[in-house]
C-alpha cells in the first residue's frame, strides 16, 4: 500500500470509487499465477461476463478455486480449454468432461475436497482463523498427511485456511459500495469467497443506488467487495432442467 509520507498513514483506502465501467476495467488487477475463487454451484450463479473476461484479459497459470470448475463446456470449462489454468481446487467433477480430461492427461494439479471443508476453509481465511478441526474426512484419503486430534472421544482433522488473491462473484443486486444481494441458490459459495479474497470483483445484474438496499437485506456487506461492474445480460444455462407436467400442479 502506498504511504502518505507526511503522516506515515496509508494514503488511500480501497472502499471508494468501486464502480467499474467495463468488465475489462474490473479485471485489470488480475495477474499471472493468481489464485482466483469463482462463485457458483456448477453453472448456477456464475459471474458469466467476468469468467469470459478473464480469458480476454490474457492472464495464465491461474489457480482456480471453484466447486465445479464449470460444466457442459460452459463457464469455467472455457478456462480449462483455454489452457490458462495450472491448478484446480474443487469438490466435484461430475460430468465436467474438460476437468476429467485435464485429470486424465495430468495437465494440471487437481485437488478434490469435501464441499463442507472447502467452504469452511474459505470462511476461515476470511475470518482470520488459520486452522480448525472438522470430523469430515477422518479415516479417508482426505486425511492423508493431515493432523488428527481427539476432542471428547471423537477424532477430527485439522484443516487450514484457504485464501485467494481474487474472488469473482455474481450478485442479483449491488450498490456502489459493493453491498450485494443474491437470488435463491445462486448465493452458494459467493459471499464466503468474497471474505477470503484479497480483492473481490462483483458482477451485478443490477446496480442500485446507495441506500437502495435496506441494511437488513444485505447478504454481502461491501467491506468484502472492491470492484463492482453492472452486467445486465446473462445466459444462465440450465444444467438439468427437470419439471413436472402442468396438469400436476
Amino acid at each position: 500500500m502506498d504511504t502518505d509520507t507526511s503522516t506515515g498513514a496509508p494514503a488511500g483506502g480501497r472502499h471508494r470509487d468501486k464502480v467499474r465501467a467495463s468488465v475489462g476495467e474490473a479485471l485489470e488487477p488480475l495477474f499471472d499465477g493468481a489464485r482466483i475463487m469463482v462463485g457458483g454451484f456448477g453453472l448456477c450463479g456464475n459471474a458469466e461476463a467476468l469468467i469470459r473476461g478473464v480469458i480476454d484479459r490474457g492472464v495464465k497459470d491461474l489457480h482456480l478455486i471453484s466447486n465445479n470448475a464449470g460444466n457442459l463446456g460452459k463457464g469455467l470449462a472455457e478456462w480449462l480449454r483455454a489452457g490458462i489454468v495450472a491448478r484446480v481446487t474443487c469438490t466435484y467433477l461430475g460430468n465436467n468432461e474438460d476437468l476429467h480430461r485435464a485429470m486424465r492427461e495430468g495437465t494440471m494439479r487437481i485437488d478434490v475436497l469435501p464441499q463442507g471443508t472447502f467452504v469452511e476453509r474459505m470462511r476461515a481465511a476470511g475470518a482470520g482463523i488459520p486452522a480448525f478441526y472438522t470430523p469430515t474426512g477422518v479415516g479417508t484419503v482426505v486425511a492423508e498427511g493431515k493432523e488428527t486430534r481427539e476432542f471428547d472421544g471423537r477424532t477430527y482433522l485439522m484443516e487450514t485456511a484457504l485464501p485467494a488473491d481474487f474472488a469473482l462473484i455474481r450478485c442479483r443486486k449491488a450498490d456502489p459500495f459493493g453491498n450485494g444481494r443474491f437470488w435463491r441458490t445462486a448465493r452458494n459459495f459467493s459471499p464466503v469467497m468474497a471474505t477470503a479474497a484479497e480483492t473481490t470483483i462483483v458482477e451485478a445484474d443490477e446496480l442500485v443506488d446507495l441506500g437502495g438496499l435496506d441494511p437488513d437485506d444485505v447478504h454481502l456487506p461491501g467491506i468484502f467487495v472492491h470492484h463492482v461492474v453492472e452486467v445486465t445480460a446473462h445466459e444462465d444455462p440450465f444444467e438439468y432442467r427437470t419439471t413436472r407436467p402442468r396438469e400436476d400442479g
Partner: protein
Amino acid sequence: MPWDKQQMAARAAREIVPGSIVNLGIGLPTLVAGHLPDDGSVWFHSENGLLGMGAFPVEGEEDPQVINAGKQTVTVVPGGSTFDSATSFAMIRGGHVDLAVLGAMQVAKNGDLANWSIPGGKTMGIGGAMDLASGAKRILVLTRHVTKQGEPKLLEACSYPLTATGCVNRIVTDLAVLDVAGDGFSLVELAPGVDEAEVREKTGAPVRTDRDG
C-alpha cells in the same frame, strides 16, 4: 419378488419421521421425496443452500438459479429459506440434519461407507458426500443389494475409498432392510418373496436375525 426402484424409495420413505430435516443424496435417494405425504411435515435440505426444497417446477416455471445439489431445477416450499454454503454445511456438520439418505458403492458391517470413487474408474468427486456421511444424525443407505456384476455391496470391509467411517445406521436394498450391527448386518425386513437365504448369499458379511440374537 425384489423391490423395484420406486418400491425401494417407498420403503426408505417409511424411515422418515414427520417433523424431520432430511437431505436426499443424488440418484436413487431423490426418488424418496415422491413417496412422502404432501403435508409439509418433512423439510428437505439441499446442501447448495436451500432448506424447504419442493417438487420439480411446473413446465415453463423453471428458474436456473433455483436448483438442488444435483443441479436439477426445483422449487421452494412456503417457509423455505436460502443461505450460503458455509451456513449450509454448518447445518450438516453441526448435526442439525436429522437424516441423510445416501447411495452407496459399498457398506461395511461396521458402518463404513464408500460412495464416491471406484479405484481405476472415473472419479465423480466428493461434493457434499463426506460431510453428510459424517455430519447427519442418522444415515440411511439406499442401494441395490449387489453390483451390476452381481458382487455384494454389503461387506466385511470396504475395498473402495471411504466416504466416512462407521457412519451408516440402516440400509434399504431391493432385497431387504438391514441394520449395521458391528459384527455383521441385522435383518430388519425382507422384500416380498425374498428369503433369508438369498439375502445371506448376496451379502459379503454375516447376516443375523432376531432369532440369532
